């Protein structure tokens, strides 16, 4: 009886440990995109994974990074172990504790410290910075595996080799090194594993255009349902699992060897060799696939899910520029990165008020319209609107535009929706999604109260703040990109959303409806700009020109469903319903009650941020 209980208990513990992974693995084989709904077995996600150039690129980066970091860390760890072993006992224990601390230190602290160090030294983040960071956090793991082997080794062994006629070099390579080789190998595998699955430190120290698998998974997953990422995560888990099995096998291997005959290299050596061969061939294969008409690089920084990936490939094919494409979630996040000079980009797609702010803070380079002949396709009314934040259209070319409104599920909401007030209705407590960005949140509150969405009046802002705080208990979540999934999957009834999202969501779930409330709202324009410190301005201009091509704009519109300012592209839209859609291209009556965001100045930003923090920290009852 007790025995059974013990087994059940053990089973529960293991289940508890591995259940999340099991769910992940199962999901990666699920034909359905919707979690928790089994729709048959499929390998499609794995196929898609291997056909995705950016993921394959991330894989290449990951492998090169892990290999270099672990080789360097192992070499340094070996030398350090030998030196530490020669130290006096007291010094030795101090040094060992110092080297152990980074392992226990919070990863986020290490990551942040690295970023500060690099940025502080004026080094812009790139591959080398990630590599340095990886080497650093791998060294303690290398030491942890190698040092005990060195300690274990008879101190006289090296002397014995000298005694038998070996030179110092021979003694080291023929005796010392082979003796501690099992430790070196497990140190290497451990470092490799650590580097392979690191996310936080990589995320903070990587330069533009550098993605490892884990940062790739992160950027992809936060945008919504991506079963390919489940597949990728599964593969990553399996890889790490296998590596750890190898590491743990090594000691047994030795015992086996002792009893057995000579000459047999241990499995671990074999495994390490295979590992390296595999990496080199994989990297070689991926590199080989790279295009041959390469003439330069362009680093693009855009919103998540804001382009048809096919367009990137077309651009590369047509121009010969290699695109390093990265995504941000909010204007503010992007601004921090650019203003710090932490990463360099060539072309960015901020929103109106942010463009104004970047002009104001002298971060942008004026555009050379001679290099953008396709500008003629952009409707003059949009160019005109853009002068509201970019006087004279000197710095930006409109890319997408739209309104902010309410998306609701008609099966959950019976009444007619035409006012922001419904977001403050207790009836819908727990099924409301708000935007997590400061301006959009205040847009809702200020519009509802009948104030300008660019107000700097403290009384009005206080009122709006109190309104948002009082709304907090009703809100299911403050989200950004996840709005789509939640609404499509019917897990929320109401949400604040951009018009472009609404079109896509309606396609996925016909029960959804979008409305711009009568009180008015925000009309926004996102435009391409080139940062002042861009090193590839020519490529950036080529990119902007390419985006203004009607066929390309159409592809993007079909993919992301945000309204395009490209008149020529709009005429090419085949679907009559969409071409005339009020959501995609609202009439004058809607636009007339909407306002663009203006840059509020430093003080204005601080004011809004201050109030927004109050909302964030207010206790929700």
């Amino acid at each position, binding site marked *: 009886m007790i025995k059974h209980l013990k087994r059940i208990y053990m089973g529960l513990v293991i289940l508890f440990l591995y259940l999340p992974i099991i769910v992940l693995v199962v999901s990666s084989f699920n034909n359905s995109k919707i979690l928790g709904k089994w729709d048959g077995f499929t390998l499609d996600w794995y196929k898609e994974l291997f056909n995705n150039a950016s993921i394959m690129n991330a894989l290449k980066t990951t492998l090169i990074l892990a290999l270099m970091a672990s080789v360097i860390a192992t070499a340094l760890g070996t030398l350090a172990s030998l030196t530490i072993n020669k130290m006096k006992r007291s010094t030795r224990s101090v040094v060992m504790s110092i080297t152990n601390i980074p392992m226990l230190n919070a990863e986020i602290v290490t990551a942040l410290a690295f970023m500060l160090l690099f940025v502080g030294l004026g080094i812009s983040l790139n591959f080398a910075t990630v590599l340095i960071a990886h080497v650093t956090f791998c060294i303690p793991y290398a030491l942890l595996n190698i040092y005990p082997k060195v300690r274990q080794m008879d101190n006289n062994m090296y002397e014995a080799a000298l*005694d038998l006629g070996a030179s110092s070099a021979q003694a080291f390579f023929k005796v010392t090194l082979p003796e501690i080789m099992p430790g070196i190998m497990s140190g290497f595998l451990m470092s490799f594993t650590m580097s392979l699955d690191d996310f936080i430190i990589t995320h903070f120290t990587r330069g533009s255009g550098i993605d490892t698998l884990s940062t790739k998974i992160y950027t992809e997953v936060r945008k919504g349902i991506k079963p390919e990422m489940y597949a990728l995560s599964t593969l990553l888990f399996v890889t790490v699992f296998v590596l750890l099995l190898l590491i743990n096998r090594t000691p047994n291997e030795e015992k086996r060897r002792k009893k057995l005959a000579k000459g047999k290299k241990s499995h671990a050596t074999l495994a390490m060799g295979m590992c390296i061969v595999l990496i080199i061939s994989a990297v070689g294969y991926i590199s080989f696939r790279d295009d041959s008409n390469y003439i330069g690089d362009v680093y693009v920084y855009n919103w998540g899910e804001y382009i048809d990936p096919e367009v990137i490939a077309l651009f590369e094919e047509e121009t010969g520029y290699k695109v390093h494409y990265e995504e941000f979630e909010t204007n503010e996040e992007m601004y921090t990165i650019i203003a710090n000079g932490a990463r360099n980009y060539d072309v960015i797609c901020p929103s109106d008020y942010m463009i104004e702010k970047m002009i104001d803070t002298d971060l942008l380079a004026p555009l050379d319209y001679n290099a953008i002949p396709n500008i003629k396709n952009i409707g003059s009314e949009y160019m005109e609107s853009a002068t509201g934040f970019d006087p004279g259209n000197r710095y930006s070319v409109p890319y997408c535009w739209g309104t902010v409104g309410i998306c609701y599920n008609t099966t959950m909401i019976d009444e007619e929706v035409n006012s922001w007030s419904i977001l403050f209705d207790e009836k819908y407590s727990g099924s409301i999604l708000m935007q997590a960005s400061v301006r959009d949140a205040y847009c809702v509150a200020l519009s509802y109260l009948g104030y300008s969405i660019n107000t700097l009046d403290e009384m009005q802002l206080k009122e709006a703040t109190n309104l948002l705080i009082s709304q907090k208990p009703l809100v299911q979540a403050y989200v950004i990109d996840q709005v789509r999934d939640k609404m499509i999957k019917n897990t929320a009834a109401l949400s604040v959303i951009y018009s472009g999202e609404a079109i896509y969501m309606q396609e996925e779930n016909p029960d959804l409806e979008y409305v711009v409330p009568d009180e008015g709202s925000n009309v926004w324009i996102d435009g391409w700009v080139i940062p002042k410190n861009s090193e590839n301005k020519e490529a950036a201009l080529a990119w902007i020109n390419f985006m203004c091509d009607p066929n390309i704009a159409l592809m993007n519109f079909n993919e992301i469903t945000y309204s395009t300012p490209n008149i020529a592209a709009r005429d090419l839209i085949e679907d009559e319903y969409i071409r005339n859609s009020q959501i995609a291209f609202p009439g004058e009556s809607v636009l007339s009650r909407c306002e663009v965001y203006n840059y509020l100045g430093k003080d204005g930003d601080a004011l809004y941020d201050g109030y927004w923090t109050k909302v964030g920290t207010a206790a929700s009852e």
Partner: protein
Amino acid sequence: MDNKLIDLQGISKSYGKNLILNNLDLYIKENEFLTLLGPSGCGKTTTLRIIGGFESPDSGKVIFDNQDITDLPPNKRHLNTIFQKYALFTHMTIAENIAFGLKIAKKSKTYIDDKIKYALKLVNLDGFENRMADSLSGGQQQRIAIARAIVNEPKVLLLDEPLGALDLKLRQDMQYELIRLKNELGITFIYVTHDQEEALTMSDTIVVMNQGYIQQMGTPEMIYNEPENAFVADFIGDSNIIASTMIEDEVVEILGAKFKCVDKGFGNNTPVDVVIRPEDVELVEPQMGTIQGLVTHLIFKGVHYEMEVEANGFKWLVQSTKLVPVGTRVGIVVDPFNIQIMNKPESEDEEAVTLDE
């Protein structure tokens, strides 16, 4: 045999403030089994390591075969060392271990194979070629270490407490084994130990060391029977060491009683130390003894009984095959030849030190 193979001249060595060797002079003759004996910290291992080339002396010279090798690295010296913990290469098989030095010396494969066979036979471990080093017992590993050294045909084998890690029975077997090996190979052994019994059993010459000085050098018999000072006497076997007075030539007063002895030339009424081995103390009827005492302890030791006799305020250690029960009054006599007279120590260094091993 009289040829000085190794000659250490004025060797001094210190680690930081610790003086380990102080102006040491020592020579080793060809084909000799020389043992450096002493408590830990006496400098014996350092002496060996200086000969091996693992340490360099602060001053002094190491002459090997009439050549100054003081600055020669270990791999250039024609001698090999057997380390206390064997230092076998655990990632290699036994054969690879033995072949190590020969491969470095670029010997032919057939030569190496022959040597491996020969060496394994010599140490009675034929057929062990393909075993891994740490699958062997301590004694076997030690023999492999010896095999690994001797295939290089060194002129001298340095042995650093090679039996220290073995248990008693194995140690005794290995002692005979080493003597046999030395006789078969005809090479010089320099042996370091703190075990006086081991030293007495195997050596041609024993060098007793303490605190960086040589206390006495001589054959085992000389060292045992005629220790030159209290340290040597105390370190080699059990002894009764008694502060006494040399009355005149051949007469010494021990604990108030006059004993006959054979020593001369100490002068009259000179304070001396007297060493009497416990097996040399004879117990007789009280009236027959030079002095009288009472048996206070008795232990059976196998070969003999060990007794403690209190006489004239001194506790005499006595070994005898005859049992004398506790409480018996006895007389003590000592054959004049068995009374060893030593000068009182002149320097602190000659004082007996407490042994920590």
